[in-house]
């Protein structure tokens, strides 16, 4: 059995005994085989000493058990790494950022506590997956949609806390942005409820997120200030219809007015679906395609689509082609020809498609994502496209490393996420090249004023370091908060670049 770093056998054994008492011996895992399950399946250090490993895992089933686990960890100075379901693949999975931490596995807290069809919200525990919530909503016959990411097996809470997004309409596809109320266990074991939930016997915890006074929920996003044990989410009332059009142009420079129109339509909430931007390839194909989905009542959708068409076709040379209008609920036949996540239906199809191509029928499987955010303007997009093209060969050391991208995602209003995917396999030499390439992209992007919204555990310090305005003032503020709410530094050390005082580098 491995020990957490800087923890004595006496302290570790005392903590394990306390956890076995409070959670049950069968839910405290110390064998090598069990601990190995928490490895990062897509680790860029696969098979190398730097691969992050847990020392043990403990799986409470209730709020009270979480409190007991955290209190014992705090008493004995044991580093904990809370996970929801641990399926944050491509961004670290269930492996702790600080190797040797004990994984606090919340998968057993898997209750859907409430779903309201009338006010369209849900209250769930961390172990509830998108599949679970979809199943609950479907069986209950509620007329609401969930917003699953690709893939749909992850935790609703975990995805939101990591800054994940989905594929239906705004604002629901911004998963943290559409949450309403949290329950959090602090490092000392105390329970806090945010927003209206701070009112005893609260009647509007999942109705109003702001409550009274400073709003603290953001402190728990991509953070290590507490363990989130409940979270509310707004759900989307099932729209009558969904209609997508494809806007295309054969000229590269047309992306500038095209994105201006798209921004106008999105910011005015005329276009509410998750738009997709594709750069064309080959001399005869369009330079740009934008898919423009609209959700809502059919007659409203038709009016919005007409308005969108008027705006887009005012750009000379731009084509606007409406696709099939889908009525919901989808028929089984319709389900077979749509991308299910656009209709709130979770699935795992991404694993059978990701990175696959005629030239690469069996891709490496693992990948890590480089996800810088740039302003949503045509000029920025063209600049990023040139930046990628100009630097790819140099960053890759003149080799074809199989780097895929950029994919331009529109998770949030007003910005683009320019996703580049790095394949990870079992070849250590190739993985090392991939890591060097990843680091180069981070530095090169930062020189342009671009930075990532999310990063694999192995690169979180690197990315946090690029948010360095005024001598890293933001990092220092976060460290001040960390020291105040978790003075012994037991929770998720190093997560998103925030380290406790005793592990902080000078």
């Amino acid at each position, binding site marked *: 059995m491995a020990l957490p770093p800087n923890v004595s056998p006496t302290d570790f054994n005392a903590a394990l005994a306390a956890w076995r008492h409070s959670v049950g011996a069968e839910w405290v895992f110390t064998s090598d*085989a069990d601990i190995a399950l928490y490895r990062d399946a897509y680790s860029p250090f696969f098979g190398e000493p730097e691969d992050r490993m847990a020392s043990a895992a403990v799986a409470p089933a209730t709020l009270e058990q979480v409190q007991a686990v955290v209190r014992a960890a705090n008493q004995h100075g044991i580093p904990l790494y809370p996970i929801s379901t641990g399926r944050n693949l491509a961004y670290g999975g269930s492996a702790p950022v600080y190797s040797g931490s004990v994984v606090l596995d919340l998968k057993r807290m898997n209750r859907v506590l409430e779903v309201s069809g009338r006010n369209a919200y849900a209250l769930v525990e961390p172990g509830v997956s998108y599949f679970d919530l979809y199943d609950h909503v479907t069986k209950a016959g509620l007329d609401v949609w969930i917003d699953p990411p690709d893939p749909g*097996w992850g935790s609703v809470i975990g995805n939101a806390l990591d800054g994940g997004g989905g594929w239906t309409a705004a604002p629901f596809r911004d998963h943290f942005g559409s949450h309403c109320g949290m329950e959090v266990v602090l490092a000392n074991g105390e329970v806090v409820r945010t927003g209206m939930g701070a009112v005893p016997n609260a009647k509007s915890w999942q109705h109003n997120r702001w409550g009274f006074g400073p709003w603290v929920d953001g402190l728990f996003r991509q953070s290590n200030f507490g363990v989130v044990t409940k979270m509310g989410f707004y759900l989307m009332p099932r729209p009558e219809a969904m209609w997508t059009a494809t806007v295309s142009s054969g000229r590269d420079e047309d992306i500038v007015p095209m994105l201006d129109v798209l921004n106008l339509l999105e910011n005015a909430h005329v276009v509410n679906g998750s738009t997709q931007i594709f750069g064309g390839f080959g001399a005869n194909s369009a330079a740009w395609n934008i898919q423009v989905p609209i959700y809502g009542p059919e007659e409203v959708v038709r009016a919005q689509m007409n308005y969108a068409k008027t705006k887009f076709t005012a750009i000379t040379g731009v084509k606007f082609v409406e696709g099939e209008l889908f009525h919901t609920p989808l028929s089984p036949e319709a389900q077979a020809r749509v991308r299910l996540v656009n209709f709130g239906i979770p*699935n*795992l199809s991404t*694993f*059978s498609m*990701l990175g696959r191509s005629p030239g690469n029928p069996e891709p490496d*499987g693992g990948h890590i994502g480089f996800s810088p955010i740039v302003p949503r303007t045509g000029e920025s997009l063209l600049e990023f496209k040139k930046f990628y093209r100009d630097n790819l060969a140099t960053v890759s050391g003149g080799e074809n490393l199989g780097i895929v991208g950029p994919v331009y995602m529109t998770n949030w209003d007003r910005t683009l996420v320019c996703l580049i995917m790095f394949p*990870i396999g*079992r070849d250590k030499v190739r993985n090392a090249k991939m890591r060097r390439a990843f680091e180069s992209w981070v530095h090169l992007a930062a020189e342009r004023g671009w930075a990532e919204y999310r990063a694999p555990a192995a690169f979180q310090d690197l990315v946090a370091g690029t948010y360095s305005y005024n001598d890293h003032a933001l990092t220092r503020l976060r460290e001040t908060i960390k020291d105040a709410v978790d003075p012994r530094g037991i929770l998720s050390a190093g997560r998103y670049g925030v380290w406790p005082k005793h592990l902080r580098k000078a």
Partner: protein
Amino acid sequence: MLDCAKKGNAVINRREFLEAAAISALPAMTRAAQGAPSVQIRASVAALHSVVVDSRHAEARSLGAGLAAQGANVVALADGDVTQLWLRTIGPAWRSQSVPIGGLTTRSSLFCLEQLSLGHGLRVVFHAEHIVHSEGRTEHRVLRGADAAGLCARSLGLAGSLWPTRIAEVLAHPGRFAGRERQGLSDAALSPTLPPGATLLTSWIIAA
């Protein structure tokens, strides 16, 4: 990983020879079994809740047909996506009992099913990779469960194009893996480096 080549023994041993001979005889036996499968084989195959095959690959179709003839519940994946299999068949089954499953699929299908199995106390107990090269040769690696399966890369190689039959025989006896030391995650998440034009297939058993 049990790999005959690592024994430093370049010469086929008696057991491997006998295995290869037995495999050569298997097609006829399988055809005979289609009419009246023996009670013993049926009972073993029934121990697997489902046999999952990726129907895009001839080797997997062959394995599935053989096991179906022996009474196995064979499920074909048309595109490698396990979602419906999980939602309609495997997930409901595992919620009531941690039943074993096996298959011959792509690596990504195994990866998904392995991840989904962990919460039900199941593990990958047998895992072999089969790299089908563009010229038709197949290279094998038995990554997990070789001893219990009585199988190694060399014996699979000796089976030539009949290697799926050898894997079918392993899948038909999941009980061999009971009581063995439990291991962590398999390597299904990541692929070995493949030569151009090669395809990677994976055979596996997930069991308690």
